[in-house]
């Protein structure tokens, strides 16, 4: 595959009357990447996804998916991109296999090819045993897996998923994330939107934060941590000894921005880099007994909450 981004948008804008759902979006997703779109409800994630699929027309700007224009060449785009909507529905009165056959027909697959792909997809999501049961009898998790099978039928180069883990039980979510990693391993580019930040953090190569229709921040999770929190590392340590002296010693280390004492004999150190050796040394020098030491990379949860607190704060003032 060439170096051109798989998904690219320039100045993409969508207005519903006076309301701007997406404003001047510039996004690039590279081949084989898992990209996460994050943001509160109504911040423009779903609208962006619909524009990328050609399901809604942008007011301004350009989008390219695999080099095709979704507005003018939607069939080319939709033949290569699998889309899992946030609430995926099936025809209850048909069996799982019949539902997939319809999808295969809409994709113009010849019959033997369609049957082979359907078997493969059902097996992959673990539904081959209930393939001939009516979808009306399926649980939420099974429908969700059928939704994934439905995308796999067309052997997509790109998969776009809207809130894919919402409503899944922990077991289901784990299996689903495993499946996504497998797809990435096959070189499929994945764009997903989500609220469930720890899951996004686990699987996404890069994430983008949406706020009121604008993509505010893009990058890997540590990059975002540095941008939003200004300090990417939080070191937790437990030590016995004079609290005042220990805190003083930790503060004195170059690169440490803050030291807190959340409880007895425990300290939290915010630092610009991983200063674990220096912290250990400082504790020992100050006469303390080091009991525990660990570094916590900033979680996406913290970044997200902090970021949106800040923008809300800015908006008020």
């Amino acid at each position, binding site marked *: 595959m060439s170096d051109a981004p798989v998904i*690219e948008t*320039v100045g993409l804008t969508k207005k519903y009357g006076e309301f701007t759902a997406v404003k001047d979006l510039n996004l690039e997703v590279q081949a084989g990447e898992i990209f996460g779109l994050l943001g509160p409800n109504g911040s423009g994630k*779903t*609208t962006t996804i*619909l524009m990328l*699929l050609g*399901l*809604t027309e942008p007011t301004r*700007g*350009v989008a*390219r998916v695999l080099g095709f*224009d979704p*507005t*003018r*060449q*939607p*069939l*080319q785009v*939709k*033949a290569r*991109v*699998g*889309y899992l*909507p946030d*609430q*995926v*529905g*099936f*025809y*209850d*009165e048909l069996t799982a296999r019949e539902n997939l056959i*319809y*999808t295969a*027909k*809409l*994709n*113009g697959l010849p019959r033997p090819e369609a049957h082979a792909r359907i078997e493969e997809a059902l097996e992959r999501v673990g539904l081959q045993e209930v393939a001939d049961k009516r979808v009306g009898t399926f649980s939420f998790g099974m429908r969700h897996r059928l*939704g994934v099978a*439905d995308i796999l039928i*067309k052997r997509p180069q790109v998969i776009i998923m809207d809130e894919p883990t919402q409503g899944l039980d922990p077991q289901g979510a784990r299996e689903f994330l495993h499946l996504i990693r497998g797809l990435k391993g096959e070189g499929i580019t994945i764009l997903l939107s989500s609220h469930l930040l720890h899951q996004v953090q686990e699987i996404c190569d890069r994430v983008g934060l949406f706020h009121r229709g604008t993509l505010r921040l893009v990058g890997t999770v540590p990059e975002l941590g540095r941008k939003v929190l200004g300090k990417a590392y939080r070191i937790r340590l437990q030590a016995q000894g004079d609290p005042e002296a220990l805190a003083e010693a930790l503060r004195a280390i170059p690169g440490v921005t803050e030291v807190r004492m959340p409880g007895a004999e425990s300290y939290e150190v915010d630092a610009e880099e991983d200063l674990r050796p220096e912290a250990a040394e400082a504790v020992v020098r100050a006469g303390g007994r080091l009991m525990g030491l660990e570094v916590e990379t900033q979680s996406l949860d913290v970044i997200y909450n902090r970021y949106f607190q800040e923008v809300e704060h800015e908006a008020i003032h």
Partner: protein
Amino acid sequence: MKPSTERKREGSPWTGLWAVVGKEMADHLTSARMQILEALIVLTAGGTVYAAIQNLKTTIGQDRFIFLKLFTTAKDPLPAFVGFLGFLVPLIAIALAFDTINGEFNRRTMSRLLAQPIYRDALLLGKFLGGLFTQALVYAAIWLLIIGLGLIGLGVPPNGEEVIRMVWLLLATIVYGGIWQALAMIFSIKFRQPATAALSALAMWLFFLVFWDMLVGILAQVISPVRYGLPEEQIRFIQTGLALSRISPNTLYTEIIVALTQPAVRSLGLVLPSQWQGAILGTPLPWEQSVMLIWPHLTGLIAATLLLFAAAYVMFQRREVRA
């Protein structure tokens, strides 16, 4: 990256059309809703035609068009089969279409469907054609059933003239079904709730079936009043009434039935005595002439169907996918 200057979208709008048609027909033909209606229409056809045969048995050999009479002969308490068709056809058409679009939204299958490589054109037309072909199939089966009953009951085969007229009647019935299907489809795009769509379509049906004829009398009196009782005034009044009445698809269909099943009918409008000159009353018209008589009705029905479908198309294209 430059915005494409080409305004046209690429690819055929009919990609996937036949997949949709096949799916819709399979759905309709297996649905409980359709099976009930099929049972209803088969019972009606069987009952009325059986009653008609009892009546007609006495006149075999005296009438050239005895098979056409199967459709039109009523025997108390049963009305003729064509009488039933006038309201059963809209009912079937509405039942096929009232939840065709909003049903997809409610089942949340719409976004998944439109994410497949097809245009909305194919989806809408496919759904319409799927319903229309289902209707065609059902009516054709009923026609064959009636002819079969006639063959057994009357013991004579239909003549060529009768067969041609019955085929035209079948075509007209399918077109009549099409217009109601297109109307119900509009409501299924307009209203999110299938129940609202069904009731609105049924209200339209009831309006044209029952109330329109009452209104026509009043409206014609307002538009072309008969003040002094002059013949010109009365002719104008009748013609206004006729024109208004023909806005209703029911009227058009009824007139089509009359012209096709009664070959002796020479005009569907007002005929002045001067126009009768030279005519031998009671002699049947050849089928070509009867078809000429209903040609405006037929084209009118088809045109109205196309207009309704175009309206549905515009509404559906503008509809946002997200529910």
